[in-house]
């Protein structure tokens, strides 16, 4: 053991001294005339080039090239990257040769950057219709498992996805999969699309144990930093604790009683160094969201049950998001996250008294979050694409809703503070992240 420790120390000393010495000396720079990327099987060359953030005709030193190498390796579907230099067309010019090894196509997602779930999406017979319509305003449909005694809310969503990196050789990224909720009473789902559109706040759909959710997205990189993404989500939601009017009975909805569809179109400008776990750079996104849902409704009993007429609602939203990340040192990174959404809800079908024009129900949401992330194991350089990181975050979110006062009372306006801790890890199968958050509303403990 002692020998091992000594050996380790000495190796460290030489690596340290040697590199420190090299680091202190003049580092050679290379004029990169051309960049060749090799061994791509499914990944688009455009995507790799976008993450390189290197321009031909520029001079780079070894550290800058190494950082570019790490940026590529941080891609969800890149396992390893090797750089080498060859002669260019004239003396002093070089060709940067990049040999890429891809990860497997199947990867796991475990993302829990949820924003808000109100009332656990519990439909009830409380006076008026405001309550369950108010639920429509939530960013997510959700049901969180928590202990009412401790008032701590801990939840573990899950999902998996199959990805194709380069559809038809066009540089498009395709992401498709099926959500299967856990069988226990914890069911928040959170979907993220592949690199250019990662924004957990916009793709969260919670589900109960009778739910299957199909999701897919298509991302097209229009430049090194910009992309367009179209996302589609569709499924059935079973709702536990559905309570019929005038009864104490609660039951779950069956498969087709509640169907939802969700589509997004986003423009993204992304200069961050990693799509999922950025440490430095800027992420700007603006887009449109359409959501349309259908619910079975028993007109006679005013109950929500299957096999009867249906009514639908839709919500049209404009969203914008801004994120900035600063790398403080080799282990720590600081992040600023700001986003807004403006949405209108439209309801039609039965019951007729619930019919709403879009202007009757308009909501706005904005939030800011600060986060500090630390690499615990310094594995990034040891394993290439590997990373193990802990992130602390805290923020505030404001929800304001402008309702038709004749139809709704009261206005569900409130703010919410939140704090959380997350762990992230990447390996050859892809990325993995789990976050535990606590949220507190100034409107009440749990709005």
């Amino acid at each position, binding site marked *: 053991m*002692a*020998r*091992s*420790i*000594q*050996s*380790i*120390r*000495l*190796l*460290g*000393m*030489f*690596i*340290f*001294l*040697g*590199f*420190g*010495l*090299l*680091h*202190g000396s003049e580092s*050679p720079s*290379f004029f990169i005339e051309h960049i060749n990327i090799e061994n791509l099987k499914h990944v688009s060359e455009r995507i790799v080039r976008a993450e390189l953030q290197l321009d031909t005709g520029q001079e780079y030193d*070894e*550290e800058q*090239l*190494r950082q570019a*190498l*790490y940026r590529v390796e941080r891609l969800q579907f890149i*396992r*390893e*990257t*090797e*750089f*080498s*230099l*060859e*002669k260019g067309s004239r*003396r*002093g010019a*070089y060709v940067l040769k990049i040999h890429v*090894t891809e990860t497997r196509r199947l990867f796991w997602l475990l993302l829990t950057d949820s924003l808000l779930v109100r009332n656990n999406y519990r439909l009830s017979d409380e006076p008026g219709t405001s309550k369950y319509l108010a639920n429509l305003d939530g960013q997510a449909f959700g049901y969180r498992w928590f202990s009412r005694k401790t008032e701590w809310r801990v939840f573990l969503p899950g999902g998996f996805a199959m990805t194709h990196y380069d559809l038809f050789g066009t540089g498009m990224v395709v992401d498709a999969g099926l959500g299967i909720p856990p069988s226990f009473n914890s069911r928040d789902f959170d979907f993220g699309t592949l690199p250019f559109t990662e924004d957990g706040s916009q793709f969260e759909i919670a589900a109960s144990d009778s739910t299957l959710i199909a999701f897919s997205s298509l991302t097209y990189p229009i430049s090194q930093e910009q992309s367009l993404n179209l996302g589609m989500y569709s499924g059935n939601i079973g709702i536990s604790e559905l309570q019929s009017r005038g009864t104490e009975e609660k039951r779950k909805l069956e498969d087709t009683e509640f169907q939802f569809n969700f589509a997004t179109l986003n423009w993204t400008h992304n200069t961050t160094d990693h799509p999922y776990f950025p440490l430095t750079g800027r992420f700007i996104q603006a887009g449109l969201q359409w959501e349309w849902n259908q619910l079975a409704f028993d007109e006679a009993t005013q109950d929500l049950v299957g096999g009867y007429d249906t009514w639908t609602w839709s919500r049209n939203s404009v969203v914008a998001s801004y994120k900035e990340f600063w790398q403080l*040192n*080799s*282990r720590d990174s600081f992040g600023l996250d700001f986003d807004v959404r403006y949405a209108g809800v439209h309801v039609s079908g039965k019951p007729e008294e619930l019919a709403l024009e879009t202007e009757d129900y308009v909501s706005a949401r904005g939030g800011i979050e600060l986060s500090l992330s630390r690499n615990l*194991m*310094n594995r*990034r*350089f*040891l*394993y*290439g*694409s*590997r990373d193990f990181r802990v992130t602390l975050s805290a923020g505030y979110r404001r929800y304001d809703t402008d309702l038709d006062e004749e139809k709704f009372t009261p206005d569900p306006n409130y703010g919410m503070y939140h704090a959380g801790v997350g762990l992230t890890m990447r390996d*050859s199968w892809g990325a993995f992240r789990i976050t535990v958050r606590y949220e507190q509303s100034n409107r009440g403990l749990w709005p």
Partner: protein
Amino acid sequence: MSTWILLLLLGWQHGEAPSLSEGPDRGLVLRLPGALFEHKDVVKQINSGLTAALVVTVTDREGRIGGARIAVRYEPWDEVYHVQVLDMRGTETKRVLATRTEMADFFKKGVLHVWSAKHRLHRDQPFAIRIKVLPFSQREQADTQAWLTRTVSGQRPGGVPTMGMELILERSIKRPTTTQFEWKVGLKP
């Protein structure tokens, strides 16, 4: 090549082995086998046009350690190797070598002083010799270690990591992440 591990415990028992002999000031001098610089994984790294490193350690039966570090960068336009050596004397040696054959010859000349004179020498016992090949992408390992050293032990860059770094070093260095060779050799008279 696997990201995880390319651990080559070849030993080269049937081939050329490094030789260890007493040098000046009661230290030890290591001569590397020429075949090392023809091994395909070594050639791949040192021919990349970017800086790769060979970290050499020598360990006696009591666990006392010496070693050296060799940094190599091939310059495609001049078709030469820029070689930089740091050894246990704390000296830095720089050479520009035209071929790998020249490089092999250079390291056969006894330029690696791998043992501190302050260590008692057991001449009749074998030494374990290990060479790790660190590719260009591993450079940040050292940078981070430097940062960690400054942060954790309060030392300046260029200082030797302290015992307080053991755990960090164990995590970062002990993992066999690159090409590695090992031999056991006796001291040549």
